[in-house]
C-alpha cells in the first residue's frame, strides 16, 4: 500500500488557530481508528511541533504561514510541519536534562518529540520538521 496524504493545511502563525488545526487532525486520526494508546503521543508531538514552528520558527509573526501535512501508509503516520523562519540546528539545542538546565522553563519540545516518536527529522535549514510513528489502528 502506498502513502496517502490525509491532511494538508496552511495557516497563519496563531496559537489559537493551531489549537483548531490540532483538533481537526485529532478527529481525523480518530476517524481512522487510531488507538487510545497512540493518540496521546501523536497529539503531544503535533502540539510541540506546531508550537515550535509558530513561536520559534515564525516568531509569532501572523503574516508568516505554517504548513502541516499528514500522511498515512497502512499503520505508519508521517507528519510534516514547515514554517517560514530562518531555521535552526537541532544539535544546538541545549540538553534540558543537564543539571544546569533542569530548572529552565523551556527547551524540552524537541526532546519530547524524540522520546515519543519513532523518528524525528529536520531538513538542512531547520525550518521543516518530519516526525513518524507506527501506530495501532482499530479499524
Amino acid at each position, binding site marked *: 500500500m502506498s502513502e496517502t496524504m490525509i491532511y494538508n493545511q496552511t495557516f497563519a502563525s496563531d496559537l489559537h488557530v493551531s489549537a483548531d488545526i490540532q483538533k481537526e487532525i485529532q478527529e481525523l486520526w480518530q476517524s481512522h481508528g487510531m488507538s487510545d494508546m497512540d493518540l496521546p503521543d501523536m497529539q503531544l508531538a503535533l502540539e510541540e511541533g506546531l508550537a515550535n514552528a509558530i513561536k520559534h520558527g515564525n516568531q509569532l509573526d501572523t503574516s508568516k504561514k505554517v504548513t502541516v501535512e499528514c500522511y498515512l501508509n497502512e499503520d505508519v503516520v508521517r507528519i510534516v510541519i514547515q514554517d517560514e523562519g530562518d531555521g535552526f540546528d537541532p544539535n544546538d539545542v541545549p540538553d*534540558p536534562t543537564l543539571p544546569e538546565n533542569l530548572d529552565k522553563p523551556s527547551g524540552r519540545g524537541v526532546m*519530547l518529540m524524540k522520546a515519543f516518536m519513532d523518528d524525528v527529522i529536520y531538513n538542512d535549514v531547520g525550518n521543516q520538521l518530519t516526525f513518524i510513528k507506527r501506530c495501532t489502528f482499530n479499524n
Partner: protein
Amino acid sequence: MASDVTRFNIQTIDGVTIAKFIDNRILDEATIQVIGEQMYRLVDDHGLRKVVLDFESVEHLSSAALGKLINMKKKMDAAGGQLAMCSLRSELLKIFKVTKLTKVFDIHASVEKALKGF
C-alpha cells in the same frame, strides 16, 4: 479563592492545600497561560506555602506546561514553601522521567502519600 482559581478544585487537609487540575488537556498555549496564572496566584496572592498539585484528571501535558510547573516550583522555593505533585498517570510520568524532571519535583502516587511528606 474559588472565584479566581477556576481551573482547580481546591481543598485543604491538615493545613496543606490540594489543588486538583480540572482540565484533562494542558496542551495548548491558551489553556496553559490561564492555568499558569491561576497556579501562581496560589502562592503570590493567596500566600499558600504548602501545596499539592493533583494531576488525577490530567491526560495530556506539553513542554510549555512543564515550563509553568517549573516556574511554580521556583516561586514556592523562593517563598520558603513546599510543593508536591501526585496522581500522575503513566503517560504523564513518562514525560517527567524523559525530561528528568523527576529530580526537580516531589512526585507521589496519591494525595495521601503526598501529604505524608509535609
